[in-house]
């Protein structure tokens, strides 16, 4: 549900400002600058979505901008479409290229990702420069005066028109920010692997993020094509991509008002500096450098740190969705238990080059049990968990889930089957609140699509409230309801582990893999974690528990598999394991070692 306040701040005030602007600054130059500001702003909103939320880098946005500009020029001038229609189509064309860039850059990281986007941008600008028949090259091509319904738009009207689009796109972006799409973008930007094991197909979502971002850049380019009724390839150079990125970072990446401020800086500064045109680059570079050093979170980020501005803190999505704080007993929503074999590891091996991290391991996990996997450092426990959750594809053997072969499934596929995990090295979504972290866990249960979220229909807010409530209930189960609205990374370690457990439960899993859930926790927190695991066990959840704290393992597990040097050395009930000499040997050192070291002395 959209509140009146939203209409006023998001639509009303901007509209009034936009309409009133020409009355205060009625000269052609200022209006032209305002147009440029608004066009650039639209591009920046899109780039902010990509860089700020999903942590992807693009130094090639000028490519999408150019594609938008040229296609709308061609569609209008050659095909004869209305300019507005052609701009929207150009946005879509740019979006398709966005998807292509996303596909090309899927596996590239760091400087390699930067290079993919740079290469794309450069390729487009070279084509713009050289394909003179179509683009006119540096000499440029003419476009028409924009007209709507037979009316030609004058300079001021065109500014209003761009402003209107900017307001609409901002509203859409805000809606995306606060719903499940924004959450998912942020999630895979924070941790791809954690997103995957919660059922998010990161590849598809990256493509979506790039496409949306490219769409906005394309529309911006289209609008630019009609600003001066002329475009030339000299506009579309790498420098412009860098400027776009500067706007995002200086404004405060991932914040809602960052793009306005960032755009104001890159458009406004040259205006102020036009008397110092010879020192332009120097001043700009100097300001940029100082800003990066002093304000690492951008201008908006720096302000939100001051307590007065904290309530406007724009990185947080509003999650106070009318959660009930009643005394109702929170219940865990779990699928029906399964008896018999749930998961089977058949001769699973994982070799890295010559290293046999796990070798020919057989494990059977029965439904409704807690199955422990233990072993000394380097015995292959983590590798086993990575294989089970699809993070690694085993080099040998098969993984059977309820009799079905899931060996080749990607992590999100395995999550869709109902298996999820926590991480030994915590993989929380750090930019989100505790409640939002858990809400991401419900990913596979959400139904509303992109368009509905863009408009934030009643259905969407209903769904949001429903899952916020459910997430809150899960937090009550792990005892963290008080912390629901805190930033996840601010919690103590032990509690962060509980958040990961709650997030995993949100998936409504058939099998939950806990990877060292007590590592780094204080004794008090360990007690809490143990209690939670015990309660989950009583509720009938099947669990695989990898843990070093033997008190937990011996008390909670029904059955234990012991690994050493990548091989299964024995398995059985806790009593059997505790008394098995092979286990004692694996942990404390074997007789052979002791005798070698100490001559005849042995365990006393």
């Amino acid at each position, binding site marked *: 549900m959209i509140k009146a306040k939203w209409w006023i701040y998001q639509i009303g005030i901007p509209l009034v400002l936009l309409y009133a602007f020409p009355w205060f600054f009625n000269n052609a130059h200022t209006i032209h600058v305002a147009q440029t500001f608004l066009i650039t702003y639209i591009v920046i909103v899109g780039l902010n979505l990509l860089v700020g939320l999903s942590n992807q880098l693009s130094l090639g946005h000028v490519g999408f901008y150019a594609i938008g500009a040229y296609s709308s020029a061609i569609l209008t001038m050659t095909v004869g479409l209305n300019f507005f229609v052609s701009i929207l189509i150009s946005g879509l064309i740019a979006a398709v290229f966005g998807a292509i860039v996303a596909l090309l850059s899927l596996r*590239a990281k760091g400087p390699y990702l930067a*290079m993919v986007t740079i290469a794309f941008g450069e*390729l487009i600008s070279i084509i713009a420069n*050289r394909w003179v028949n179509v683009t006119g090259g540096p000499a440029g091509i003419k476009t028409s005066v924009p007209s709507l319904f037979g009316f030609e738009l004058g300079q001021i009207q065109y500014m209003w028109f761009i402003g209107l689009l900017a307001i609409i796109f901002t509203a859409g972006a805000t809606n995306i920010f606060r719903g499940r799409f924004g959450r998912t973008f942020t999630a895979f930007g924070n941790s791809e692997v954690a997103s995957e094991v919660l059922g998010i197909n990161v590849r598809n979502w990256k493509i979506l993020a790039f496409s949306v971002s490219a769409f906005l850049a394309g529309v911006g380019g289209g609008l630019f094509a009609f600003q001066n009724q002329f475009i030339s390839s000299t506009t579309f150079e790498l420098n412009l991509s860098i400027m776009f990125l500067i706007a995002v*970072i200086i404004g405060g990446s991932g914040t809602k008002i960052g793009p306005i401020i960032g755009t104001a800086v890159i458009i406004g500064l040259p205006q102020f500096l036009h008397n110092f045109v010879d*020192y332009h680059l120097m001043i700009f570079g100097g300001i*940029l450098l100082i800003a990066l050093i002093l304000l690492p979170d951008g201008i908006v980020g720096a302000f939100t740190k001051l307590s007065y501005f904290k309530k406007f803190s724009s990185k947080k999505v509003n999650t106070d969705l009318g959660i009930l704080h009643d005394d109702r007993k929170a219940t865990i929503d779990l699928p029906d238990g399964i008896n018999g074999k749930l998961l089977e590891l058949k001769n699973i091996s994982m070799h890295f080059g010559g290293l046999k991290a796990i070798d020919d391991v057989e494990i059977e996990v029965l439904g409704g049990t807690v199955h422990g996997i233990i072993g000394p450092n380097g015995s292959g426990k983590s590798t086993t968990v990575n294989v089970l959750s699809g*993070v690694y594809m085993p080099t040998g053997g098969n993984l059977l889930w309820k009799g079905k072969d899931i060996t080749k499934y990607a992590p999100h596929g395995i999550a869709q089957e109902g298996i999820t995990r926590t*991480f030994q090295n915590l993989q929380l979504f750090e930019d989100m609140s505790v409640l939002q972290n858990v809400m991401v866990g419900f990913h596979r249960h959400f139904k509303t699509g992109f368009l509905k979220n863009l408009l934030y229909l009643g259905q969407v807010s209903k769904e949001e409230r429903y899952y916020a409530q459910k997430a809150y209930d899960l937090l009550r189960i792990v005892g963290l309801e008080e912390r629901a609205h805190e930033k996840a990374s601010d919690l103590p370690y032990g509690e962060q582990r509980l958040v990961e457990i709650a997030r995993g439960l949100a998936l409504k899993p058939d099998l939950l893999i806990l990877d060292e859930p007590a590592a780094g926790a204080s004794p008090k927190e360990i007690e809490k974690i143990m209690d939670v695991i015990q309660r989950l066990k009583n509720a009938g959840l099947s669990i695989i528990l990898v843990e070093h704290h033997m008190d937990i393992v011996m008390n909670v597990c029904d059955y234990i598999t012991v690994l050493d040097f990548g091989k299964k050395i024995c398995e059985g009930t806790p009593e059997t394991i505790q008394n098995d000499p092979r286990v004692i040997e694996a942990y404390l050192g074997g007789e052979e070692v002791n005798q070698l070291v100490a001559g005849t002395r042995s365990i006393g």
Partner: protein
Amino acid sequence: MELTDILKAIINGLVYGSVYAIIAQGYYITFITTKTLNFGQGDFVMLGSLIGLSTFMTITATGGGVWIAFIASLLLVIVILGICGWGLEQVAIRPLKSWHSIGWILSTVAVSMIVRNVAMLIWGRDVLMAPSPFGRAILDLGILKIRYHDIFVLVSAAVIMLLLYVFLKKSLFGKALEAVAFNREAASLMGINPRLMASIAFIIAGILAGVGGVLVGPMVHPGAFIGLFLGLKAFAVAIIGGIENPRGIFIGGLLLGVLENLFTLYSTSMKEAAAFFLILVILAVLPQGLFGKRVKEKF
């Protein structure tokens, strides 16, 4: 098309490619030690070529010999660009909170803007003519004519690669630099200060850019705005070869140089596009470059 044209294109490609490779080694050295690199490396190259040119012209104008002028300008460029590299690390890399964010991309770009502006104020906006110490002398091999400067560049590139190799593998500081790159924590347990090594890495990167600039000067027309194109080519070379593999970078440089010049035989516009198209194809298939290591992440 004749064989001579193809041979000529290949030689030309090797010459350009080896200059790209020299500049790109600077990316390698800073990236392995700090996981950052100078996105404005190209502007350092530009600075090197212009300082070199001015020194060369000043000395020859006052009656100094060509070779004295050349060596003096090379030495001056090494000193100044070394200082620039050190300064860059101080102002644009060290103060940033996190090396993993993309802040360093923008902060080094910011420095490059300043450098470009300074160069523009000193040398103006236009491109200049830079003479080679060999003048326009040409080696005539019958089927093929090669400029002496081109041969000089090839030989210099080989010498620089060799020096770099000797420095990294044989000198104690080189070994320490590699140790930091391989394992920062273990290196500091040996008493090696990783921050000092970061400074040294950037100094070397600056010097490589400067030397690259001196060599490339007579091949292009140097001017305040040539940095972007050179930096971009060198970056492409580093990425194609695999940024953590110096030999890969060298091969990548030669490969890109030669392919580019072979494409020129068909059309000059294809030359420019081909490089970037090649990069997209390579990275789509091998996201770590041709010779980069693949790392398996652990969770």
